[in-house]
């Protein structure tokens, strides 16, 4: 009996996490095929985690509020880029410049979010396609603003951002600034970079201490049992092994020594996770959940559904704007007319790979998704080269994976819903 149960549980686990499992397999195959060194891959991965996590996390609230995947993220990213352009024009660099960016982006993103939310309320049931289309629509206006109005209606004299003919902004804008006026590149990442080895050692020590204190408290309250001791021993053993490995790496001269983590960026990401989690515990968070489960029930229980939905979109848009600023301060050059367009798609693909669906997402999905998605992204060109002798194929495969994941996830969700509907219909008939 037990065996059957276990098998069923295993099967359920596989079905539930099928997308993530496929991606783990894909990235492992890719890692084997590609000739990239492991330290290089880990370094790239750290870089991409710090760059993209904030953007992916900005998807959470709309999913929980029943709006599905917010393809309108792109509009938020535009707000972030408008702020970056303004701050670069004023030549405010470093951390002050970065903070000014966040400040300027806030009201713009709130306005954009409000308008997008209004649109989503007018297109209920079609929010995802509306989000995709609105990003194209907004892109037309964005291009008009920076290709036509900048330098003509909006005077931007003598700025290095303006094209040589004086009309419109250049295709790419460097955020490195000049010697006298540094830009916002690495404004956040560069505050404090810690060696990965040091970080792991520190984490291991903290974990050990935490478990030790818990053990001691239990001991003082006379609640100590055998299993608690066992748990502590496991943690302690693990920590010692980790510390050992990392000390060995630091003493040796492998490439792993030089891997660094932008601590402040990671702290900001952790803070966002915590705040999102806390928000879902508040009254507003409860409203998000209720509206997400059923708009009708929410309406009956006196919740102003449309208002709640708009709030969810505004939060998402503001976070997307800030996420884009964090993303670009890491990249260091802004592709004026292209940087924002990929944001929605990549973030959505990442969160889906992490195991989220159209109606359910957790913080862990976002974090797992970023790691898996970018692992495949790092290895696929070189893997494609190794397999077919052509890196181009890896690139195409990468794009296919992004679109395919979104298509398949939405398809599966639609299929489940369709099945449920049929079962419900059968019930109502009988």
């Amino acid at each position, binding site marked *: 009996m037990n065996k059957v149960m276990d098998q069923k549980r295993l099967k359920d686990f596989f079905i539930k996490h099928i997308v993530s499992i496929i991606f783990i397999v894909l990235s492992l195959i890719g890692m084997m095929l590609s000739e990239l060194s492991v330290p290089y891959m880990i370094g790239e991965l750290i870089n991409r985690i710090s760059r993209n996590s904030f953007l992916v996390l900005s998807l959470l609230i709309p999913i929980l509020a029943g709006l599905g995947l917010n393809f309108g993220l792109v509009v938020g990213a535009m707000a972030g880029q408008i702020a970056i352009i303004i701050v670069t024009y004023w030549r405010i660099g470093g951390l002050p410049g970065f903070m000014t960016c966040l400040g300027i982006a806030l009201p713009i993103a709130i306005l954009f979010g409000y308008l997008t939310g209004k649109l989503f309320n007018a*297109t209920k049931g079609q929010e995802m396609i509306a989000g995709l289309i609105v990003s194209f629509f907004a892109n037309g206006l964005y291009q008009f603003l920076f290709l036509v109005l900048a330098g003509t209606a909006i005077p931007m004299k003598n700025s290095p951002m303006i094209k040589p003919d004086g*009309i419109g902004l250049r295709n790419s804008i460097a955020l490195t600034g000049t010697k006298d006026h540094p830009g916002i590149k690495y404004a956040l990442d560069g505050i404090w970079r810690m060696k990965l080895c040091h970080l792991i050692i520190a984490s291991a020590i903290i974990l050990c201490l935490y478990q030790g204190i818990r053990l001691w408290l239990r001991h003082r309250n006379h609640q100590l049992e055998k299993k608690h001791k066992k748990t502590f021993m496991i943690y302690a053993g693990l920590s010692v092994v980790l510390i050992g490995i990392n000390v060995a790496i630091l003493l040796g001269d492998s490439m792993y020594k030089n891997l660094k983590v932008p601590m402040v960026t990671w702290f900001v990401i952790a803070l966002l996770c915590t705040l999102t989690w806390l928000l879902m515990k508040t009254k507003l968070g409860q409203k998000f959940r209720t509206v997400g489960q059923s708009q009708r029930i929410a309406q009956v229980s006196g919740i102003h559904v449309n208002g709640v939905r708009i709030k969810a979109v505004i939060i998402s848009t503001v976070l997307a704007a800030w996420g884009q600023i964090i993303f670009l301060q890491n990249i260091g050059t802004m592709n004026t007319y292209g940087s924002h367009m990929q944001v929605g798609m990549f973030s959505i693909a990442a969160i889906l790979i992490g195991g989220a669906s159209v109606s359910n997402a957790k913080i862990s999905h976002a974090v797992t998704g970023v790691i898996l998605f970018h692992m495949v992204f790092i290895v696929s060109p070189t893997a494609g080269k190794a397999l077919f002798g052509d890196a181009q194929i890896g690139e195409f495969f990468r794009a296919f994976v992004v679109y395919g994941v979104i298509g398949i996830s939405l*398809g599966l969700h*639609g299929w489940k819903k*369709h099945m449920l509907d049929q079962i419900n219909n059968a019930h109502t008939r009988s």
Partner: protein
Amino acid sequence: MHHIIKKIGLPRLIISVLFIGVLVTAYFQGIEMHMLASDIIRRFGMYGILVLAMVPSIQSGVGPNFALPIGIICGLMGAVISVEFGFIGILGFIFAIIFALPLAILVGYLYGKLLNAVKGSELTIATYTGFSFVQLMCIAWLLLPFSSEQMVWAIGKGLRNTFTLKKTFAYVLNNFWSFHIGDVFIPTGLILFFLGVCLLVFLFTKSSTGTAILAAGMNPQFAEASGVNMDRGRIIANILSTVLAAIGIIVYSSSYGFVQLYGGPLMMAFPAVAAILIGGATAKRAKVSHVLIGVLLFQGLLTTSMPVANKIFPEGNISEMVRMVVQNGIILYALTKVDGRQ
């Protein structure tokens, strides 16, 4: 006044006024009107069938066919095979369609099956199915063993991004029975072919199968009750839509003189969706007349706004921005009219 607006439809009214405004501006700017007229007529025939592909899918209740690239790729495949075999002139054109048809029917059938399994959020799924199919085919264009010198890279492997049809079937329809009215070039063959296909689709919608599909699309519950097989209707409509997209892109490529592979088809669904919506269709109802009006207005507006915008503002690509805003604004407007409340 309000009544008149309601009758014509707000989007159609706005685009018409814009179109007339741009035309008048073009006249006063001294842009050669006969060139403009020739261009509008040519693009009307070029884009027409791609827009026509929207009719069956809207009528069957699936909504506008955002997965148009799927059919387009079948058509491109047909064109590529035809060139590979070395068919020339009108034969090349006909064989491109013959090679594309079985592919389009098969793919349309499979895609219709898929859509029947995921009722509810078809539009987004369609868009991304189309996108991923285009990317998958990018790999195929690189790897498939084609050898015609007109199509493959001289160095390296795979088909070119864009290749010319000059030696095969470029302009075969445009030049068929063509003549000039004054200085305006009339591509008779192209227009006749488009109108002929329109007529066939119109006759199909009036046939018993077409009426059943229409009824099921309009009122699913009623259709189910009266014993119409909805799923079968949706599959037939999808096959038709995919076949039309395949034929549409062959006509487009022939009239344009080039075949665009790889990322070319990626964004082709959106202008086609916008055109039929401007013509007066909704996400639930479409007629062949909507296609004719929509293509004329939308392509007309785009064709005329290009030289006009360039005269006023030589730098920057204003007509492209106008296209983005108009095209996607129209689609958004139509989405607000879809009743998807659960």
